[in-house]
């Protein structure tokens, strides 16, 4: 019986028919998606912090407004994604709990600090840029609610990326101090951005099954290469450099070669030892704990009102 279901399920996937929440799905598929979507949602919410860090210091009112709108978009992404995950039978509170207890991960990139205004440019250009590279294929995810959420998310992410690039473009035309600020930010964010595509293919154990289920369409290394190729060209427009002495166009491969990634750093950050892991998680926990009385009051009030309505009716 189970096998027959499994066959039908895989068949739908192969024919690119979307799986919807009420459809039968293998438990492992459900669990994998819950993990993937909730991690993604957490990344959006944690991702608000490094950029939120510059809202009160944005250097012009126009930049301030754009940045606020961007961080608000990220909150919105978190919201759609939590909702998509909820269709798989997990509650938002359960997901928060997994985040707060360290059981659920989020994108490691947000464990790096934003030290200058130029970081707002680089985060948009590279971090949102890498996110788009990763996420555009997810618009075709086999799971319907995730795919649909990603269509909205990707539209906004590409805005963010352009805004980030524009921040850097203005800095590149600015004073010597501004150019230095921008180059320094690129130097700090380049390698962590490459790590956003995850471990090398031969060290990414879940990938093969995820590809078969079409919740992943391209391998980590394929996407990483594509990203390097794009950025290596874009950085020329800015007149800055990427901090990799091995970066070189390879005519034969039709791609840029690039230097070795420091995977030790990657695993350190994943394991919680990045520069801001503790700050990020503490900030979320604090918001959650200090918000408890607010949520309790809202619930008590809603219950009271519902009762009054009943009595009146």
């Amino acid at each position: 019986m189970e096998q027959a279901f499994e066959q039908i399920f895989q068949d739908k996937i192969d024919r690119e028919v979307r799986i919807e929440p009420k459809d039968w799905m293998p438990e492992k598929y459900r669990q994998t998606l819950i993990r993937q979507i909730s991690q993604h949602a957490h990344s959006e919410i944690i991702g608000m912090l490094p950029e939120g860090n510059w809202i009160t210091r944005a250097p012009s009112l126009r930049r301030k407004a754009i940045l606020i709108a961007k961080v608000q978009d990220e909150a919105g992404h978190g919201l759609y994604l939590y909702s998509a995950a909820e269709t798989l039978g997990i509650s938002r509170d359960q997901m928060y709990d997994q985040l707060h207890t360290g059981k659920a991960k989020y994108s490691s990139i947000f464990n790096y600090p934003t030290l200058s205004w130029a970081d707002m440019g680089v985060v948009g250009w590279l971090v949102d840029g890498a996110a788009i590279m990763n996420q555009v294929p997810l618009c075709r995810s086999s799971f319907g609610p995730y795919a649909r959420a990603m269509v909205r998310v990707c539209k906004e992410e590409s805005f963010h990326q352009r805004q980030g690039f524009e921040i850097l473009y203005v800095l590149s035309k600015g004073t010597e101090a501004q150019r230095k600020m921008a180059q320094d930010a690129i130097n700090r964010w380049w390698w962590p951005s490459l790590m956003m595509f995850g471990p090398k293919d031969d060290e990414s154990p879940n990938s093969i099954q995820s590809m078969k289920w079409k919740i992943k369409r391209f391998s980590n290394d394929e996407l990483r290469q594509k990203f390097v190729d794009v950025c290596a060209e874009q950085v020329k427009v800015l007149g800055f450099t990427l901090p990799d002495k091995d970066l070189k166009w390879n005519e034969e491969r039709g791609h840029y070669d690039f230097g070795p990634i420091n995977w030790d750093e990657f695993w350190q950050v994943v394991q919680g030892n990045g520069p801001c892991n503790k700050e990020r998680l503490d900030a979320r926990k604090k918001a959650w704990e200090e918000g408890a009385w607010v949520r309790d009051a809202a619930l008590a009030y809603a219950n009271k009102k519902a009762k009054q309505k009943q009595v009146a009716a």
Partner: protein
Amino acid sequence: MATMKNEIDFLLHLADNALIIGHRNSEWCGHGPILEQDIAITNIALDYIGQARNFYQHAAQLINQHPTDITINQTGNNMVLPATEDSLAYLRDVREFKNLLITEIPNGDWAYTTLRLYLLSEFELQLFTQLLQHTDAQVAAIAEKSIKEVSYHVKWSQDWVLRLGDGTEESKQRMQVAIEAIWAYTGELFIQPDYATAACLNYAAIQAAWNKKVSAVFEEAGLNIPSKTFVQKGGPDGMHTEHLGYILAEMQYLQRAYPNSEW
């Protein structure tokens, strides 16, 4: 022309109010108690930054048209010319800011933040409604656009005052504590600044309408209006709390550290 200087000062007062309360509300971004509410307060912050820009842009335009009326400000420094929205927001110091004190006091908890917003936006709703009759069509247009936003702010913050006032014991108590702390800053809302000389303004009417609406909401929420009525004042004349200096230090740091740069 004295009236031009008055209009500019009044526009700066409105712009500064919006900028500083926008700054305070934006401090919640990423730290709100509920994700949907984090989005809501961030959106409100964004509305305020937008209002501030509208008022500053108009003030800058008038300043540049009438530079001799106003280039010497209260502390005797020359105002940077030509004025822009950013020179006005980023290159004036504490004593030149004209915002109400209620906008600059720290956020406190969610009760404090939502109550402050409620009391302020009920005031803004009345004020902006009067400004619809302003003889400067530009001011009336900005007021009209702002009223749409402010009406939502009133609704959103009023809902929180009701929810917290009539929620749990703890929330009621926190709301009452917030009222006691904020009340001293509400009297200033109704003191007409010397430069608020536009004929359409009637602060007594604003106060009467505000009292009526606020009392009704407090009554529904089961909250008490404090009996002591001491008034902290001075913001619109550049006499601020110590908090404003820190807001400006943070907000203006890049413009001050890297002068004459484009961003």
